[in-house]
């Protein structure tokens, strides 16, 4: 029962991450692409949790949700705001 729940949650998070990866790649506005990338990172953190890797989650959450959007937003502020 519990292992079935874990596998089901993993599949839901994986399919959601496909949608947000596609949106982050094709989106023209770069700030919205950063937000989509943050959602994808959150879904990957849920997958890492369900793959029973707590130390990976502890490292990946600050890097994927906190530092990547911060430095990419800093970069977007200094350079172009729109793709193309």
């Amino acid at each position, binding site marked *: 029962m519990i292992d079935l*729940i874990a596998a089901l949650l993993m599949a839901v998070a994986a399919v959601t991450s496909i949608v947000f990866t596609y949106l982050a790649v094709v989106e023209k506005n770069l700030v919205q692409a950063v937000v989509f990338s943050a959602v994808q990172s959150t879904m990957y953190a849920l997958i890492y949790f369900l793959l029973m890797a707590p130390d990976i989650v502890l490292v990946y959450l600050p890097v994927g*949700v906190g530092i990547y959007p911060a430095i990419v937003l800093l970069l977007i502020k200094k350079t172009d705001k729109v793709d193309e």
Partner: protein
Amino acid sequence: MSLALSCLIPLYIVAIVLYAVRVLKGPTVSDRVLAVDALGFDLAAFLTILSVLFRAPIMVTTALVLALWIYALDIYVAKYLESKEMGD
């Protein structure tokens, strides 16, 4: 106890998917960041419930980290929108 918690799990999944729908179709940046905010806090509560359900007491610390860094993302985007100045 475990069975009752297992019956409550699909409600949380449905809520998280509905938040993801708002992130997907929100017209402005603020809507999307607000939906990400709510999604992250609900996911933190969900991780706590899952670690109680899985009987793995080490896994519960990830919820605290998730809540703190989702708030940090919120503040970054707010500061970007408000003064267009990051980092100071």
